[in-house]
């Protein structure tokens, strides 16, 4: 099994004494779509900053496709593409120049770079703006420009630090499709995001980091299996004045036509619907109260916080 990224005992203390990472270790397999999640200030961007050599580590080891960044930083960076959280291109340059220039840094000749730039601009909906200054692009287009720029040298490992932040849902979904295609074509992707449905939808493996420590590192399926209770919102036909008693289920009346029901994993939904039927309650539609990963994420982070406080 080839590893795209190996992080061993990574430690980072900033100049002001803030300990951002506390000896974290994790691995990302080649071809994986990996989520690195955590609350704000947890250490995600520091970790990715060290991997992409924008942040100096205090100690620990990072290898990209087996190449240790301390021994051969240039060799390690050849396989890496980075889409950072903040826009970091020259706002005064035009879109195509930004892409072609980036390819030049990887030794790609101008003609080939120009062809690649055209391909990604068409693919990511930037073609119409190719001669415009980057500062004139919308927020979503700037994000797509950053993705196109990171792909110009065809990296084997792509790091995406909140690539869809501030992007509308329609565009976000089209970006998900593009990223899925990219991953299916063999590119290993590491994603950080605050949209947990994005991570759940795209990623196969996950690490959750909180206050500089990895608190969970497993497959997405295994993690979701840990969810013991799901809460559903039911839109019902007839208005109620109080919540009905459904044996074994926690039920709350949110509005006169809306019920919130807690369902334990082993209870299933059939029993719930039988009880609703018995109470002559007709359900018009049903949805999860929140994303499944979101519920787990919050409970894991809260648990760690409580343990630390204790």
């Amino acid at each position: 099994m080839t590893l795209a990224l190996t992080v061993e005992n990574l430690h980072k203390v900033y100049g002001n004494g803030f300990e951002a990472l506390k000896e974290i270790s994790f691995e990302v397999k080649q071809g994986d779509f990996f989520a690195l999640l955590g609350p704000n200030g947890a250490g995600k961007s520091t970790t990715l900053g060290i991997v992409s050599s924008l942040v100096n580590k205090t100690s620990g080891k990072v290898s990209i496709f087996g190449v240790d960044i301390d021994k051969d930083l240039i060799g390690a960076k050849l396989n890496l593409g980075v889409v950072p959280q903040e826009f970091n291109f020259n706002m005064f340059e035009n879109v195509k120049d930004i892409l072609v220039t980036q390819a030049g840094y990887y030794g790609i000749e101008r003609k080939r770079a120009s062809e690649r730039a055209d391909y990604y601009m068409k693919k990511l909906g930037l073609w119409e703006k190719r001669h415009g200054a980057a500062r004139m692009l919308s927020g979503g287009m700037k994000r797509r420009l950053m993705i196109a720029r990171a792909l110009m040298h065809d990296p084997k490992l792509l790091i995406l630090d909140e690539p869809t932040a501030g992007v509308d849902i329609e565009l976000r979904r089209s970006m998900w499709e593009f990223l899925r295609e990219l991953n299916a074509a063999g590119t290993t992707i590491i994603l950080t995001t605050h949209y947990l449905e994005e991570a759940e939808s795209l990623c196969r493996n996950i690490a959750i980091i909180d206050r500089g420590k990895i608190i969970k590192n497993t497959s997405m399926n295994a993690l979701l299996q840990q969810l013991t209770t799901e809460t559903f919102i039911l839109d019902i036909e007839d208005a109620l004045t109080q919540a009905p008693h459904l044996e074994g289920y926690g039920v709350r009346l949110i509005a006169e036509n809306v019920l919130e029901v807690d369902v334990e994993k082993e209870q299933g939904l059939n029993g719930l619907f039988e009880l609703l039927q018995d109470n002559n309650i007709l359900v018009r539609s049903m949805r999860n109260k929140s994303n499944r990963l979101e519920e787990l994420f919050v409970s894991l982070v809260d648990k760690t916080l409580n343990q630390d406080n204790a």
Partner: protein
Amino acid sequence: MNSHDLFIAFWTILRREIRRFTRIWAQTLLPPAITMTLYFIIFGNLIGSRIGEMGGFDYMEYIVPGLIMMSVITNSYSNVVSSFYSTKFQRSIEELLVSPVPNWIILSGFVLGGVARGLGVGLIVTLLSLFFTDLQVQHLFVTVAIVFLTAVLFALGGFINAVFANSFDDISIIPTFVLTPLTYLGGVFYSIQLLPEFWQGVSQLNPILYMVNTFRYGILGVSDINVGFAFMMILLFIGGLFSYALYLLKHGKGIRS
């Protein structure tokens, strides 16, 4: 990366730098041309005609090499300091930092971008000076070598200034309070032979004096200082500043957390 890839990376940086200052030519190429034309008219023609000769030459002829050198120094320095600081400010330096471009290529690209602007402005000023005087180059190799090395030296200085700069104010402090006084006191407008002995000694501590005089030697064939010593000092300074700039890049001073 093989040498071909490295060359493409270097050329990409240099090309971007040249494109930057040519795109904003009204801010980068035009002002020195206007300023130097005013110097030629006011100091060379109007005041110079009353001064007479300096160092055995017509005053206009005497100040032309100094003014050319002054524009080369100022422009090679300010190009790199503003360009590199802008990449830091906009964070577009990260494009280079995540790429596999070695530090010496990054440094060489920015420095030669500064040299290109310095020499470009120097050429414009030289062409303008031909409207006011005849230039007969006495030592072509010395002239070309000193102007190139001076541009390299000050481009390196600009790079180091930009690495330490935390605001746009920081990139104008050195040019205003150090570079300009040293240039004016570096024998651009006068021969240090005119100064009292004590001030001649003090003037010899000014590195710009050596560059201006070596360039003047290349064009007019006269100099207040030893030309060989000047070359040696410039090469030593270039070696020192290049190594220091590489050290700063390697440790990410001002550009990595």
